[in-house]
């Protein structure tokens, strides 16, 4: 697979984020970058990273196979991840996963025949207060049920992009990989998309509703007692 000069230029920009002589730090973002082009980590992608950073292909492959977000097979436009770690499992996450697995006819890390959807079960996604959770291209669908998850997946299959509960409106997995490589969100609306939910605000809202605040501060309080000299 031939990579464009543009992609190589992007790789150089990533490397420039790290100090002179420390370009290997660019490897993780660069692997996200090649995934944004190929949809997974291809032998060509590995070769590109190796060539540009100046390490061997074996060294790159040893890294790419260590991390779950680097995929070894082609992926769909949408990566559906269902958390099945203990809390989500107990709250119904395993049933959600099993339902999607049966409906889509694919198992962990597999992609539907039409190349649209990749399914995986995930470990704790740092959203246990919304358990069970599912993500699509890493945007949150909170407190899913087998039915709601199925509804989301069916909508994806119809070409719709159902809004996540928390996170930005969906883009494709390749587009998301570009952000993972370090590029800013270029959709202004997506940046503003919802990041809140009842669980996030539970304590703060309860305090506000009941007029409870932290003890007043005096911003002029000195940090250290200065001797009068």
């Amino acid at each position, binding site marked *: 697979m031939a990579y464009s000069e543009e992609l190589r230029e992007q790789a150089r920009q990533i490397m420039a*984020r790290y*100090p002179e002589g420390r370009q290997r*730090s660019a*490897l993780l*973002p660069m*692997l*996200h970058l090649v995934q944004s082009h190929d949809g997974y980590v291809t032998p060509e992608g590995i070769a590109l990273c190796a060539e540009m*950073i100046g390490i061997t292909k074996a060294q790159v492959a040893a*890294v790419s196979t*260590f*991390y*779950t*977000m680097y995929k070894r097979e082609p992926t769909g436009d949408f990566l559906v991840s269902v958390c*099945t*770690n*203990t809390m989500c*499992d*107990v*709250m119904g996450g395993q049933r959600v996963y099993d339902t999607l697995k049966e409906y889509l006819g694919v198992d962990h890390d597999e992609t539907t025949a039409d190349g649209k959807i990749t399914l995986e079960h995930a470990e*704790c*996604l*740092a*959203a*246990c*207060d*919304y*358990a069970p959770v599912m*993500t699509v291209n*890493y*945007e*949150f669908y909170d407190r899913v049920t087998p039915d709601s998850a199925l509804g989301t997946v069916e909508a994806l299959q119809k070409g719709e992009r159902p809004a996540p509960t*928390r996170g*930005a409106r969906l883009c494709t997995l390749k587009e998301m990989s570009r*952000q*993972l490589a*370090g590029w*800013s*969100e270029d959709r202004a609306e997506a*940046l503003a*998309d919802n*990041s*809140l939910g009842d*669980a*996030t*605000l*539970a*304590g*703060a809202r*309860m*305090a*506000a509703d009941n007029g*409870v*605040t*932290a*003890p007043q*501060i005096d*911003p002029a*309080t000195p*940090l*250290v007692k200065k001797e009068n000299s």
Partner: protein
Amino acid sequence: MASAPSAEVLSKLTPVLTKRWLSPEAWKIDVYEQLDGYAALRKAVEYHPDEIIAFMKESGHRGRGGAGFPVGMKWAFIPQNDGKPHYLVVNADEGEPGTCKDLPLMMNDPHSLIEGIIIACYAVRAERAYVYVRGEAVHAARRLRNAVEEARAKGYLGRNVLGRGFDLDVVIHSGAGAYICGEETALLDSLEGFRGQPRLRPPFPATHGLYASPTVINNVGSIASVPHIVLGGADWWKSLGSENAAGTMIYSLSGRVKNPGQYECGMGITLNELLELAGGMADGHNLRFWTPGGSSTPMLTAEHADVPLDFDSIAKAGSILGTTAMMIFSDQDCPVYASYRWIVFYAHESCGKCTPCREGNYWMTRVYRRILSGRGTHEDLDTLLDACDNLLGRSFCGLGDGATSCVTSSLKYFKQDYLDYIEGRRKPLLNAADLVGAH
């Protein structure tokens, strides 16, 4: 039937880090500035960096990443005038099962983290900071990248910050899905472009961290608290918590409670009080076991619901405060199954560097499967304890130690549950089909 919390318990809510979350646009710099944003930075730069470090020590602020190490002391370990570049690395890899406090903070109040980073870098004299955000946390990374750009445009970052003659660059670095990269030295290896495997210590990151240079590694919450502490002062911060545990903590309640979520309170609140805030247990559920700070902290029982949730009190009760990720389970949940599921996680996330952890978690997974499928034996319980013996204190990093927590604590409090599976009083939870490939 949720009864309202009493006034006394309500007054324990102490919104500091979570307060701006109520302003839905606080992630934008203009709104942040209207809400006291960057006032702490302006205040801090009026002092000498050494004074900021002394102040942080005085505040009693302790790390929020799990171990509770004093923040000021960590900053003071950085050698000064050594001619080497210094780095600040923010640990935003939040992956400890149950933990869910850093993501909402980064999504909803990203500038508090950026402002804390600038103050920390000013204090330890670092010209570059990296935020290692767990890969999956895409909305958090999105808001952080935007915050960095906004801060740069306003002169808080870049060359000659606030005209004070110091330069600072912040890079938001997304990880790629590996729990072990939350361990601070594995994180450094990952950030240098390697597999995330822990390093031998000493040397410690304070002298040989990122690129073998002096490096401070702090959790998101540790750093995002800094602007608040600087504004309010050391005595104020101490007044919010309990002895040896200054300040507030975001307690994350999940599981069988009516209103799960984030409850920020002074250190030392109890589970019973938190449950009162959260509307009580979910209907039809009675508290049976819970973790005070994530899956790597030994589980506790209903008997411990009045233990103050601070570092020392929880340690006395036989557990660890960890990340104050309170996962709450009921009489309808099985502690054996919960432990099994966590061990599967540790086995999956073990980096493979040391034998006790790589092999131990693999074996324990198999033993759990056997027990839960009704084919366990009494010796299996000894095998589990043996494996834990080989892990605790003998593994190369905290992941291996952490894996033993659920096993030993569930065996301590709920041995009968194990015996019920082994002696056939309880219906197997896993069927033989699940065992294909497991033996």
